[in-house]
């Protein structure tokens, strides 16, 4: 391609500048978590580990973290089951309304979060409350699972498309029944897709705030809810900042795992 030298330089500069813009705010949060100044005056006057210690000892942070993990695990478990079932139905069968079903799976993340949030809030309050089930952990998990199904669905569907049915047919020809085939052939083939989908589902749930706002009752406080609540309290600012910094550091973990998953796959094939 005939690109002038200035055009090339401009493109490279935009790439470098864009990446810098993506990472600088995150680095500022990381740096500020050690900033000795309570109001994050810039540049930092000195550095301290005090805020990390305060965050570690904060019961509010610990409870919120535990709540988020529980909600994430619950939603992921449901999403794994439902997402796998739909993916099998869509990929292995053809039926009337198949496109509508695949659209339905995407709907909860395609609609603005606040629409899903108030729809579920309204439904929970009218349907569940007469039975004495108030808003709480259960409704949070239900809400999160609703929009987490799509991540598992996408991963399993892609895997099923790639693997085809020949191995399962071979297993059936050798006399294995449907359950044995699933246990020994189908499931092992899908394991890494389930892991990747589950990881995404957990991350999605762990980060979610809008649907959570409308499905959590007074007693349930996930980590995003805790952060949002304390964001506007000046005396909590250093602790909020440490939690934010810790979450930035932790976000490398799923990337690493995803790379390991895809890397391992390439080497076994």
């Amino acid at each position, binding site marked *: 391609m*005939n690109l002038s030298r200035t055009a090339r330089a401009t493109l490279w500069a935009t790439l470098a500048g864009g990446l810098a813009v993506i990472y600088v705010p995150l680095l500022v949060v990381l740096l500020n978590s050690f900033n000795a100044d309570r109001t994050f005056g810039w540049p930092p006057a000195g550095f301290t580990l005090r805020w990390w210690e305060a965050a570690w000892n904060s019961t509010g942070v610990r409870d919120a973290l535990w709540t988020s993990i529980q909600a994430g695990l619950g939603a992921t478990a449901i999403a794994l089951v439902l997402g796998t079932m739909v993916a099998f*139905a869509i990929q292995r069968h053809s039926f009337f309304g198949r496109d509508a079903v695949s659209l339905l799976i995407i709907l909860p993340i395609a609609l603005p979060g*606040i*629409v899903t949030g108030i729809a579920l809030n309204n*439904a929970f309050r009218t349907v569940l409350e007469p039975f004495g089930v108030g808003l709480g952990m259960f409704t949070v998990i239900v809400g999160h699972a609703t929009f987490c199904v799509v991540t598992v669905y996408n991963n399993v569907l892609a895997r099923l498309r790639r693997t085809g049915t020949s191995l399962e047919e071979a297993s059936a020809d050798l006399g294995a029944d449907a359950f044995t085939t699933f246990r020994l052939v189908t499931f092992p083939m899908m394991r890494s897709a389930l892991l990747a989908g589950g990881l995404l589902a957990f991350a999605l749930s762990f980060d979610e705030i809008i649907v959570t706002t409308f499905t959590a009752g007074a007693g349930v406080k996930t980590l995003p809810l805790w952060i949002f609540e304390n964001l506007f309290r000046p005396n909590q600012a250093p602790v909020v900042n440490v939690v934010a910094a810790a979450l930035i550091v932790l976000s490398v973990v799923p990337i690493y795992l995803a790379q390991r998953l895809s890397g391992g796959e390439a080497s076994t094939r």
Partner: protein
Amino acid sequence: MTRTLRRRLAAFLHRHAGVRLSLLLSAPMLWLGVAYLGALAALLVSALWSTDTFTGNLVKEVTWVNFQELLTVEVYRTIALRSVGVAAAVTLIDLVIAFPMAFAMAKLAPPRAQRWLVIAVLTPLWASYLVKAYAWRVMLSADGVLGWGYGLTATIVTLSYLWLPYMILPIYAGLERLPNSLLEAAGDLGARGGRTFRTVVWPLAFPAVIAGSVFTFSLSLGDYITVKIVGGRSQLIGNVVYDNIGAANNLPFAAAVATVPVLIMLVYLAAVRRTGALENL
């Protein structure tokens, strides 16, 4: 005994694909088809109800009063237009930044570096949404690194930052599929960079651009958290919905307002459907 039962069940399932399909679809359809769609439908219906101004109770009679208020009251029209303006501005800013970045990634960077560049763009997506909005709150605050203060501009900047990777990745994928030979052919025929871009790159990458814009536009349109964090006193559609659910306890009106972003998105999707971009999502 249980063994033969299991084999017979397996054989039965093997023979009856319809039963297999209904079993597979049962739980997901109950969840998403009945419960979730039902909740959405109920929300739509309640947009046609009203609340008693004295008691705050629901009046379950069909009325268009919420939509009338939405269309006639000046404030709501302003907020709706402002939200669309913010979403459009964010989409435009992201496009201007993302396209050259994606182009450099897909066509200039050596193949080994491409993988790392994609990871570099993907990684911040895993960092919490709230943390990123918070980072901008700290940077924009009066004594922060940038110190620009809060407001509508701060909202647009922060939203553009949040959704930038959602624009880069589809465009990158689209440009990667674009064969280099086409660019070389254009060059051999004497076209310079600008002309190649206008006549070859842009038309072929356009569906990918649309795919990215669906993300940036819809994510900006429904947002109310970022506005609360860096928006100062400005309001978007999401805030109106939120305030009517919480403080005002007026579910019917909130439901009516919530249909606005959904309708705008449907119009947008219908408009871009012809470009074939939706198969790229």
